[in-house]
């Protein structure tokens, strides 16, 4: 015990709760963003594809929020966590709250996140937290498909016409600054790594980077330079877009509390 800094149970619980909320909120917010595309995708087949991905992500968020609710131990249900927390309580990556934009931006955002979740879930399967490991194993299968889908599209766009190439390159460059916070390691992260609950950020970054490089090369797109600026969605500091998204998502529960169907 003298080797490692003493941590209280409260600190460990707070770190675990924060970590699970980060995973849950990232899936939830992107699920909501993709839900906005219902009826607006370029073809009916893509429409269903986006909806499927959206439902996968919301399903992941439900499992994770239920786990968060248990860790928190304050009788807040998964629904209350999703629909009654405010902006600064959300722990999602700023990347996923970015507006849909054109199709290249939708695909680029999806791809950058899919590569992240793919690497993360793969490693989380070995988490010392059995429930987190089980959720990771289930989510990994869905994410493998998401990655295949968004990666395939990115290659088609990048290696397509001049117009689609330019739009894809622009989308990657626009979203790139938001990727830095994925690997931003906090004290709480280091604590979870020591406990074997979370994989080290450096491992995730290496895995993510390799996936990104492979697909960008095939898509004839250029990897932007590393942007030192860090967004802090994982610490509750968001862009101006999240508030509008939550207003949409939470309207019903806030207007008609405890409404069910």
């Amino acid at each position, binding site marked *: 015990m003298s080797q490692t800094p003493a941590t209280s149970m409260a600190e460990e619980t707070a770190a675990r709760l924060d970590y699970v909320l980060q995973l849950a909120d990232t899936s939830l917010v992107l699920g909501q963003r993709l839900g906005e595309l219902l009826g607006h995708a370029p*073809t009916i*087949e*893509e429409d*269903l*594809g986006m909806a*499927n991905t959206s439902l996968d992500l919301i399903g992941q968020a439900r499992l994770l929020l239920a786990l968060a609710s248990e860790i928190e131990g304050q009788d807040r249900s998964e629904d209350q966590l999703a629909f009654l927390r405010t902006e600064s309580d959300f722990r999602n990556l700023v990347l996923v709250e970015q507006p849909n934009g054109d199709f290249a931006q939708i695909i680029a955002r999806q791809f950058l996140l899919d590569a992240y979740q793919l690497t993360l879930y793969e490693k989380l399967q070995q988490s010392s937290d059995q429930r987190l490991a089980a959720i990771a194993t289930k989510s990994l299968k869905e994410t493998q498909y998401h990655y295949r889908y968004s990666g*395939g599209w990115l290659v*088609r766009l990048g290696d397509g016409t001049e117009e689609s190439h330019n739009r894809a390159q622009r989308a990657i460059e626009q979203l790139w600054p938001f990727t830095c916070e994925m690997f931003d390691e906090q004290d709480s992260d280091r604590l979870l790594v020591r406990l074997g609950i979370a994989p080290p950020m450096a491992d995730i970054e290496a895995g993510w980077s390799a996936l990104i490089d492979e697909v960008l090369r095939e898509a004839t797109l250029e990897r932007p330079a590393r942007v030192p600026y860090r967004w802090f969605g994982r610490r509750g500091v968001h862009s101006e877009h999240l508030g509008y998204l939550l207003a949409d998502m939470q309207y019903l529960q806030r207007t008609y509390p405890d409404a069910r169907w």
Partner: protein
Amino acid sequence: MNASTGWPLFEIFIRARAGLDHKHVGSVHAVDARMALEHARDVYTRRLEGVSIWVVRSSDITASDPQDADSLFEPARDKVYRHPTFYDIPEEVKTL
């Protein structure tokens, strides 16, 4: 071809369970076979309908002409003896 996208049409065949045949279930528009597989997965297997998917470009299918139906199919109509039920099976045959 889809009028708005110019994407070709693919016919989709799904095998519901191991050991069964692939059955035609519909079609999707896609730019290539890989995308057609993904679309077929998203459109036709959302409720666990299948364990395997085949996609075939609709333009690669050669179909019989409905106008030829008379010459192709009518001649079989009066040949009921081609059905196994046409024949009386002798009682002595137990295991046919």
